[in-house]
């Protein structure tokens, strides 16, 4: 199931639907909506954490739903400290407290079981679960890693939506491997043949795609931090948590 994601506009860098807005407006109804939209885009780290706690898929899915309901309905975001905190830290902290409280969990499990609030595509997350099952990796680091992957995936999805909107799906899908400098993407000549364009035009298109991706990524991260000034730090942090042996402590 590919549910419709609520993508932020890629430009400007700091979008409307953002954690900054949630923190700034607090009780505003718009803030509630913004939080709901953010939650819809960032359920995979929560679901994956619950699965790693040993919950079977169905329960993890129900509990994910319950957790988000709990978060929205209790207005927990309104209590977040605007001075410190990115959406990632807020969600992780809330999840940890939530898991520690048995009563909340049982209640949420019941609630989550019969509601479909956050559309969840478990198949993809399930397949990626085992990929991070290294023993000894701390819970928070696992959460942050899944978070980093979700950020990248959301940015790619947003980029895909943008290209599709311009009728350039083929261009996007063909050139996408060129985004990864470590990957061995096909040669410009091969890409040019495939797209029926000149090599020069393909180079320009790849350049543009990379630029748009950087913007999309920063736009996506912009949604999850309180101020635009934190985007670069968060980007560097997410890059580091995905390292084989991260050298920094999770924040």
């Amino acid at each position, binding site marked *: *199931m*590919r549910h419709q994601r609520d993508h932020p506009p890629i430009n400007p860098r700091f979008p409307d639907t953002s954690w900054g807005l949630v923190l700034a407006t607090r009780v505003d109804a718009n803030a509630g909506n913004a939080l709901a939209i953010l939650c819809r885009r960032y359920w995979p780290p929560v679901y994956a954490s619950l699965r790693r706690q040993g919950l*079977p*898929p*169905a329960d993890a899915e129900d509990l994910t739903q319950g957790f988000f309901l709990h978060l929205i309905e209790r207005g927990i975001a309104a209590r977040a400290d605007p001075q410190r905190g990115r959406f990632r830290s807020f969600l992780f902290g809330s999840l940890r407290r939530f898991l520690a409280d048995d009563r909340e969990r049982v209640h949420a499990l019941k609630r989550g079981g019969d509601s479909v609030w956050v559309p969840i*595509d*478990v*198949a*993809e*997350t*399930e*397949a*990626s*679960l*085992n*990929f*991070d*099952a*290294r*023993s000894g990796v701390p819970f928070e680091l696992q959460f942050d*890693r899944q978070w*980093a*992957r979700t950020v*990248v*995936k959301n940015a*790619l999805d947003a980029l895909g939506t943008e290209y599709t909107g311009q009728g350039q799906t083929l261009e996007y*899908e063909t050139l*996408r*491997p060129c*985004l*990864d*400098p*470590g*990957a*061995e993407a096909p040669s410009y000549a091969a890409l040019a043949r495939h797209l029926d364009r000149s090599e020069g035009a393909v180079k320009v298109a790849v*350049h543009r795609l*990379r*630029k748009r*991706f*950087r913007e999309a*990524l*920063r736009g996506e991260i912009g949604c999850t931090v309180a101020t635009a000034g934190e985007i*670069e730090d968060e*980007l*560097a942090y*997410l*890059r580091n948590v*995905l*390292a*084989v*042996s991260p*050298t920094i402590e999770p924040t």
Partner: protein
Amino acid sequence: MNTTRAGSLRCPSCGSLRDPSLPDELCARCLLDAALSSETTEDGGSDDEHETAAFARRRIGRYSLTGEIARGGAGIVYRAWQDDLGREVALKMLTQERLETREARDRFRREAELMAGLDHPGILPVYEVGEHEGLPYYCMKLAEGGNLAQRIPGLRGRYRDVADLLASIAHAVAYGHARGVLHRDLKPSNIVIDASGRCLLTDFGLARRMAVESTLTGVDALIGTPRYVAPEVLTTAGAQLTAAADVYGLGAILYELLTGRAPFAELTPLQILQQIATRRPIAPRRIDARIPGELETICLRCLEKRPGDRYPSAAAFADALEGWQRGASSRQKSSLQRLTRRILPSRRRVWAWSTLALATGCVIAAAILLVHYRDYLLTPDPRVATRTLAVLPADLPNPSPTELAATRAISAKLQGMRALGVLPIEGVLRRARQKDFPQGTLLRGMSLGAFVQVKVRSEGPQSPVKIRAVDELRSEILWQGEAQAGNLDDLAKRLRVALEAKRQQQPPEANVPRAALAADLRGVELVQRYENASNDAAIEAFQQAIAIDPKFALAHADLSLAYGQRAKRYGGAAFWNDAAITEAGRSLSLDPRLASAWDTLALAYYYRGWFQRARATYQRARAWGGARRLHARGPRLSIGSFRR
């Protein structure tokens, strides 16, 4: 949870775990890295270039940096001028970014120390190891001639030069081994050429001391350049690697120098890692028939999957190359000398007697082996059995006359294929009529690996004929096509070409231990019977297969199928379905493209009542070429079944 999947699931570039939900095998970390480090500035240059230009104006101790020679994943090599001695040198430093991680600093320091301790004419000498304002660096001889990777086109066809060059590098590697140092990242670009044209081994960034536990083992299984990395590097802890891993690297370089391409070229890094672990490279002489047979043999021996099957040491590899060179020289000696040698009667008699004695010895040894190991030797090897193919009408056991005629025609065209026996059509039909078995069982009973299904909807020479070749073991559609019943020649020809091409590739199961494969096949046989007892036994058989080879992805998928069957038929549905989902996940973590695992995952979702999810997963199975493994034995679930 499976924790032994290092290798194919790691990004070959940065070593971090991949997320299969990202398209095109993109690596999240590399993408983040790219977004951070190479933002293009307004004047068209990249930040990296600006950083380099600024850096190049700096001085490092008694060295003035004059330019950049190369930039790798971990470090930058600068051209520099050594003021006090008045000479040009190469200076290697960590990139600014790598400088921040302790691990990278440790590795850099270790590389410098290792290289400084090696004194051999075939190894690039290190002059000085130092630190400047907290920045570690080391200074080495400047290799003016570039590296071997740049010279590959010019070396094509110069077999004696290639052998000479590789032998000298092999001696340098052997020297390292004798001092307990494994290089672990042998590749053409790590062999540099000095002003006199001599090849020198360099870049010991991944080198380590043999049998010494390292504090850096966390990434040991993940590093190395994918195209040249030995299969055991993907699965073995660093400390357990032996000289054979470097022998593999030498063989991979030889392969590239002979053929102009790396053993597993033109693939994505993930595919390369999968192929290194499972497939044999194409024989060099198939790429270029002029390559001497002996060099091909030497090369392929280095690339054997099992370390024990390779040359026991780099020195032995060098000996083999030098032996070939001597042989090649002697072959070039005058015809008079050859004639003289041939007419020496005593020498010929000795050869004749030795050959006879050897032959007699072989016969006796074979007889002893047969008596003692008869059962083992006469049990068909399932891997060999998969080399047979049946051509079947779709409408078994009673096909229409046109379908039968088309089947016969296709079958006749496929006869005589290389390395692929085609079963006689009459035998297949007789068997199908005798047993009211589902097709899968029929095929299993014949120990088939693949079958070609011929389908004709209507009668007459104009009716369309569809054919589909299916690898039964992997549930993979190998090829499909369509033509009119009256004109099948071209269709058969294309099928034949496609199948022969597939046969040249070894199936991923080729390296699975025979016992594990046999247990899995037994389980598949049992799971098709749809009885409580046989389901128990099937689960046991699959578990046994997994116990023998925990990385046998197909067995995990089959176990998932057996759990799914149990869920559906014997109660405790949710529990067994969850087990099936977990097992399918394990299988996919080992082989994300295994169609039958996606397939069983879809089935488990379906029976769990998650129809949307099941449908999406099933589509994924189809995307990987999945021909429903259950098409012949289980409930037929078309994609329409999921539209609820």
